[in-house]
């Protein structure tokens, strides 16, 4: 796993590069914090901190467990099927969810009424529904193809491994 220390020998160049990267990075970070405090009203800063904290919590405590649960459920539901089919279904769900994550705010903003009719002019709700439909059809077609391919391969005599 990622906790294993790298086997690479820490050469002199590597160490120099790391020192420079961390030093320049720390400077950039400090500059960012300075610009933030300098340009944003003090009473707005708790809001920024809140959003950063909420983003971490939302990802680590909501999105990640959902994705993990999705993985377990699809693998269990598809235990008789080839891995490729499970992955295809997982990919379709992930793609649909990702696009929903991006487009639902657009639908919400559209519902609130854009400042002029050239902002958000499309029918995003319909397009999102069509996107999910396309994903369902495409993943079904790929799954059928994978299923037939696996079944055909299983009918053939077992090949010996070189």
């Amino acid at each position, binding site marked *: 796993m990622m906790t294993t220390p790298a086997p690479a020998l820490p050469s002199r160049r590597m160490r120099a590069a790391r020192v420079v990267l961390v030093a320049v990075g720390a400077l*950039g*970070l400090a500059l960012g914090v300075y610009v933030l405090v300098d*340009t944003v009203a003090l009473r707005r800063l708790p809001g920024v901190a809140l959003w950063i904290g909420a983003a971490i919590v939302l990802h680590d405590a909501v999105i990640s467990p959902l994705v993990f649960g999705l993985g377990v459920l699809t693998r269990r539901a598809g*235990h008789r099927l080839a891995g490729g089919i499970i992955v295809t279904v997982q990919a379709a769900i992930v793609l649909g969810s990702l696009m929903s994550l991006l487009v639902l705010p657009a639908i919400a903003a559209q519902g609130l009424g854009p400042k002029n009719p*050239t902002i958000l002019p499309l029918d995003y709700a319909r397009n999102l529904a069509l996107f999910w439909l396309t994903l369902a059809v495409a993943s079904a077609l790929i799954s059928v193809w994978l299923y037939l391919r696996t079944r055909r391969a299983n009918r053939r005599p077992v090949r010996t491994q070189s």
Partner: protein
Amino acid sequence: MRRLMYEARAQLASPVRNPRMATVIGRLLGLAFLLCFGTGLYSHFLQQPLPWMTFPTRPAGLYQLTQGTHIVAGIACFPLLLAKLYVVFPQLFRYPPVTSFATLLERASIALFVGASLVEITIGLLNTYQWYPFPFPFKQVHFALAFVIIGSLLVHIGVKLPLIASHWRAAPTAGPEERHPVDTVAEDTAAVALAATRVSADEGMPRGRGLTGRVLSYIDAAPELPARTSRRGFLATVAVAVAAVVGLTAGQTFAPLDAVNVFGPRKKGVGQQGVPVNRTSAQAKVATAALSADWVLTLALGGTERSFSRADLAALPQTDVDLPIACVEGWSQMAAWRGVRLRDLVDAAGGSPGTDLRLISLEQRGGFRQTEMGSEYVRDPLTLVALELNGETLDLEHGYPARMIAPGRPGVLQTKWLSRIEAIDA
């Protein structure tokens, strides 16, 4: 606690979650971040130049390209960042969580990096929808967080450099599961092999007692996917996701993708005279002044003032140019403009070549009521005081009676409802 953390990491283990995958996705995400940072800085300095700065006026669609790239790369960050976080997620459950002051700093910087990155791309996306549900100003926070993110990115790369270097290239020898053709026999073998590497009962949590135990044995019973299928599936998902989020929105700036622009916040050709609008005449409260019969454009250059009515401007030699309107929010629209060359107008008003100009709009308030234009744009033959758009008299929403249009500048600097042009004394 140690057991719990161990259990979490064991349950989250996946063939996808390895340093090589983190390097592969990390490189792409790093590239997208740097593209966003570079194009973002360019856009920032175009709008708030330092005194010594001059900018290229060619290619005329330069800003369309840089800002289009900014938004496209920013949208691509959504699947890439989520994929990167997916790959490294088990790291959250490292135990002990902190071993030294250095690891405390490192983990704190990672938390800031992740949180700031998520907020940065989210508020960027919401800004393209012109929706501001957050309790802070967009522009300043988006700008400041960019430095926080790039800074913590460099720190992160510095910390992980040996790991990145050793996984920069794929391992030269294929793992044992790579050598089998995809058939169910090989998959079963791989699944058994993987299952064998899972938590043994004495290391992890006890099974079958209480709710936790039952949930864990339920998860244990879920069959594993073959490692190769997992990895390829993951990479294919990320690739298709990037292609989908970019492909289905980029048509708002990249004309060849216009036909599949189904999720872009703007659509080419939608708007008065086929051009989208950002700030309306109602928002700017200019209708009365702009439609008034005694409107004049006043040029204050070299100590003299001269005023031009719309008829005076129309009587001067007219020039046709094709230039895009390219907005900070990532959309752009090519259009045909007709009007007076700015440099001819400056000459006619007695201005000297090489002066920077201050452009003042009829609007009474608004951040871009008064903007500055460097002499490189003033002297450019493509820069017009435009009177017509796409063959018609300029619509009020597009800046009637006269607006500025120059190559390679953001839309907010293409001042609409022009009222006054002044030389900036050096």
